[in-house]
């Protein structure tokens, strides 16, 4: 009775008719669409299927550690840690002497923290490759084991058959 005023649900997509004979002949229906590649719009925003960590400049944050093809992660992380401690001390001093100038120090601290997190995130691809190596190694291990098992069983079976032939011949 109130359906006129209440919002009705959107109708189902019209291509349901294409699947009317699916139970009798699965090939009469169109195949599923291929996966999306590249960039696609979703709810008004554009997303991309490429998984890449946006660099710090893209996020509008200054990058404190030196850029370059090869970054010595350990060294940079340790020096950032040291910088962080120094900045915390600086903040404590500023709060004692010139308390109204806290803002810049706090921003510096948060900048250092963001850089640290960005460095750690950029280590994730390396971790992914290491995981892949580990998986491959364990798979190779399992396959070798399986090959050994099959060989052993086959030999046992051959042995049994020979024995049975001998028994039968001797009778």
């Amino acid at each position, binding site marked *: 009775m109130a359906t006129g005023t209440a919002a009705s649900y959107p109708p189902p997509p019209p291509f349901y008719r294409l699947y009317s004979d699916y139970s009798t002949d699965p090939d009469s229906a169109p195949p599923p669409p291929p996966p999306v590649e590249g960039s696609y719009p979703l709810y008004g925003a554009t997303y991309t299927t490429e*998984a890449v*960590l*946006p660099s710090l400049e893209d*996020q509008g944050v200054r990058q404190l550690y030196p850029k370059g093809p*090869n970054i010595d*992660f*350990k060294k940079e*992380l*340790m020096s950032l*840690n040291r910088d*962080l*401690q120094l900045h*915390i001390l600086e*903040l*404590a001093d500023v*709060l*004692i*002497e010139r*308390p*109204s100038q*806290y*803002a810049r120090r*706090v921003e510096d*601290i*948060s900048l250092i*923290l*963001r850089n*640290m*997190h*960005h460095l*750690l*995130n950029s*280590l*994730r691809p*390396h*971790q992914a*490759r*290491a995981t*892949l*190596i580990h998986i*491959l*190694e364990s*798979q*190779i291990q399992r*396959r*070798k084991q*399986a*090959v050994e098992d*099959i*060989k052993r*069983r*086959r030999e046992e*079976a051959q042995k049994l*058959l020979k024995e049975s032939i001998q028994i039968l011949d001797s009778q």
Partner: protein
Amino acid sequence: MGRGYDSLSLDLNTSSNSSQSQHILRRRTSLTSSSPRFLLRLSFSLRSQRHHFAFRENPDSTSTLGLTPGEMDIISQLQEQVNTIALLAVNTFGTLQRDAPPVRLSTDYPEPAANSNPTNPNPTNGDANPNPNPNPSVNPSEEANNVAEQPKAMSAALVQAAKKFDALVAALPLSGEEAQLQRIAELQAENEAIGLELQKQLEAADLEMKQVQELFNHATDNCLNLKKPD
């Protein structure tokens, strides 16, 4: 640090204190408009950092899928440690600001009613702090003890967290990207080879099994035929 400054102590650890800290927030921020809200901003910037971690498995929860640090991979441990350091810093400054006793601003004003802090680090105070009040009640002396011990304990915790971070960084098993890619290529080739061999063996074993089954069927048929009905 005197009580002239509003303090925003955000004890982020205990959820039971959340209502209390909310109350403190509301009370203190209703005071002077120039109150330093930097702790609030710092904690917000920390929280917003969590949402930038596109590659963390669970960017919204602070419990990292409920895993204890012993079960997490080292990079997640490092990330947790960074957050811990930031948390300790926020708590340190917040607690110190909240619990700092008032200081004497000038000789014209009377001495503050609460017990003065013997280790007051504020040097802009023109008047040197006199000896602690000979107040026999337990509360002020206890307060003085707490206020003296807290910075030591908290700064010790901060330094320890930083050392743990350094230890974790040193434990990172890093290697070059080319080395990894090379190893992956080698392993893939080996995997292919052993996969082929496995398949060969499987096929041979299947064949043999069929033959044995045939033989068995023949043998049982013969047994049945030879068996004389009683």
